[in-house]
């Protein structure tokens, strides 16, 4: 399947500094249709029927989320666009924000109509500070055109924490608190920002909305697989000759993406879904990309046969440990212990019980952590243990051998000294 650019359709075709070019390409047609011809309930219905699910990682049905927020009774409702994009190996949101800010703003305008929000925030990753001014200028241009009478959009910059991309931590961050996850329920749709019903959607999710409203739900749901509709934007990096942002229809295979499009040749493993994403071994490259299999936020990192799996997993854990907010025990302590074990294995200092310890910890973290970071931190560890167990076993045997050998050498040299 070739690339299918819908979300990215206007990237490069319009000038991100000039709304006229966007209008010339049919921009804001979806919004005008939603505003003049559809009731809020109809917009939600369209999104529900389209089968659009969240592109930020969790894949929660977008229409259902909107319906819950729409039906919640409150004086104030909020809409947040999650542009925190902290996941290692994702850069699709940056690409969208810098090339097609108007598409995103149109999506936000429609979402605001649908759920009845009067205040929207774009939560911008701290490292994307350079996008703050262009975004504000784009918002001002949209306002001038009179499309923002129902909604105020503010850009809110984060402070550089990965966990603040997690929806509840993100709200804490906007409220001015320490960015830490909250327990759920209550879900943000019922009680979110400042205790009011709140919708949080990823940049790419909102980018799909104008197309769904303009072209109809049936058009959208005709694309993709049984449970994953539409297209997905992938950020491909690692050992490939053409890294970059690619948009494919849901249900395309990983092989098409990394080999045909990105030009990978030698593939030992591919990590799909960022730092806590699945590790797919090279021989399973035909796997289909959809929410049913593996997807996450669409980060795809390719590793060639020169890479060491334990090194990769250690590097993952280093990141997650560093970014753990430290609120709940399993993740705060578990990532630290895993880092210690993986660090030893990497330095050929493994011990006999290491694999068991990793598996026990993985189960506890997955079952008992408070938020997605801790729950998914062990996914790459478990995947690598599943597909590359021999490397772990080898490394432990090497460690044991080395220790006994070095032990003998050491005692010999000590005898020599005496």
């Amino acid at each position, binding site marked *: 399947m070739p690339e299918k650019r819908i979300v990215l359709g206007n990237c490069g075709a319009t000038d991100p500094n000039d709304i006229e070019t966007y209008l010339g390409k049919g921009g804001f047609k979806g919004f005008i249709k939603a505003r003049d011809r559809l009731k809020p309930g109809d917009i939600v219905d369209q999104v529900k029927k389209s089968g659009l699910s969240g592109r930020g990682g969790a894949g929660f049905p977008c229409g259902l989320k909107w319906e819950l927020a729409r039906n919640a009774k409150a004086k104030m409702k909020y809409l947040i666009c999650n542009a925190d994009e902290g996941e290692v190996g994702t850069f699709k949101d940056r690409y969208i924000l810098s090339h097609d800010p108007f598409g995103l703003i149109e999506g936000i305008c429609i979402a605001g109509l649908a759920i009845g929000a009067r205040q929207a925030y774009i939560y911008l990753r701290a490292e994307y500070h350079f996008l703050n001014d262009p975004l504000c200028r784009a918002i001002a241009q949209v306002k001038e055109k009179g499309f923002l009478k129902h909604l105020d959009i503010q850009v809110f910059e984060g402070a550089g*924490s990965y966990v603040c991309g997690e929806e509840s931590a993100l709200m804490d961050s906007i409220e001015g608190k*320490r960015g830490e996850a909250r*327990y759920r*329920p209550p879900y943000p749709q019922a009680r979110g920002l400042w205790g009011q019903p709140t919708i949080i959607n990823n940049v790419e999710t909102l980018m799909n909305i104008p197309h769904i409203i303009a072209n109809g739900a049936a058009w959208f749901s005709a694309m993709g697989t049984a449970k994953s509709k539409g297209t997905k934007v992938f950020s491909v990096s690692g050992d490939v000759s053409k890294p970059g942002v690619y948009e494919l229809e849901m249900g395309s295979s990983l092989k098409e993406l990394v080999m045909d499009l990105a030009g990978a040749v030698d593939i030992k493993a591919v990590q799909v879904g960022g730092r806590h994403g699945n590790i797919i071994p090279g021989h399973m490259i035909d796997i289909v990309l959809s929410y049913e299999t593996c997807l996450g936020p669409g980060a795809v990192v390719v590793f060639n046969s020169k890479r060491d799996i334990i090194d990769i997993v250690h590097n993952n854990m280093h990141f997650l*440990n*560093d*970014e*753990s*907010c*430290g*609120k*709940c*025990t*399993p993740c*705060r*302590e*578990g*990532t*630290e*212990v895993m*880092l*210690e*074990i993986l*660090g030893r294995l990497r330095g050929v200092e493994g011990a006999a*019980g290491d694999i068991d*310890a990793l598996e*026990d*910890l993985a*189960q*506890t973290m*997955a*079952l*008992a*952590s*408070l938020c997605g970071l801790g*729950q998914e931190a062990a996914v790459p560890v478990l995947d690598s243990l599943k597909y590359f167990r021999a490397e772990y076993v080898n490394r432990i045997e090497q460690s044991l051998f080395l220790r006994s050998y070095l032990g003998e050498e050491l005692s010999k040299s000590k005898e020599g000294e005496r």
Partner: protein
Amino acid sequence: MGNVNVNIDGKKLRVREGVTILEAAEANGIKIPTLCHIKDQVPTGICRVCVVELERSRTLVGSCHTPVSEGMVIHTHSPKVTAVRRVIVELMLTAHTGDCVNDTNAENCVLHNLASDYEVGAPRFNVKVPRFYPAEDSNPYVRRNLSKCILCRKCVRVCASIPGKNILSVGYRGFRSKIVAGFDEALLSEKCRDCGKCIEHCPTGALSAPVKV
């Protein structure tokens, strides 16, 4: 609010809607261990010791903060729950560098008792650098030995609930989190007086009343 039907450990119960699983269980004589929970205060779900198995849920759920709803089937001591609790206690013991063996107060330590209830011996895990802090004697009313702290944040919350206090907070991030006063300064007696609330709530020996000499 009406009542809902739930099933906890095979007991069919009718409980008031809106109460938490923990409250429902306790009211019916089922004991669930807790560390960070403070009765009648807003829960935080930090320590994760109170997790229980909820049928049809992907993960275990914290019983101190999850409200009951109609038809819930809950297991508070299934093998899965026990295994997870054991690893959590083991993790708490790993990073904690207390000298509990010769601590005269060990039988009052909630963590110590939890570890013996769940038959957790010496932890098999290691960390590169355990959290170690010198004990602080700067305050005549509270002795702080943060090496024994398990970051349950009860002291932060009880202190914040006293009007005009709110002296403690959480500093740093992740594994290096620490309960701090101000910008990680000494706990001075101008601010912290002799209410002793934090000592009362501390589940380990991290906060204690100084021994008068």
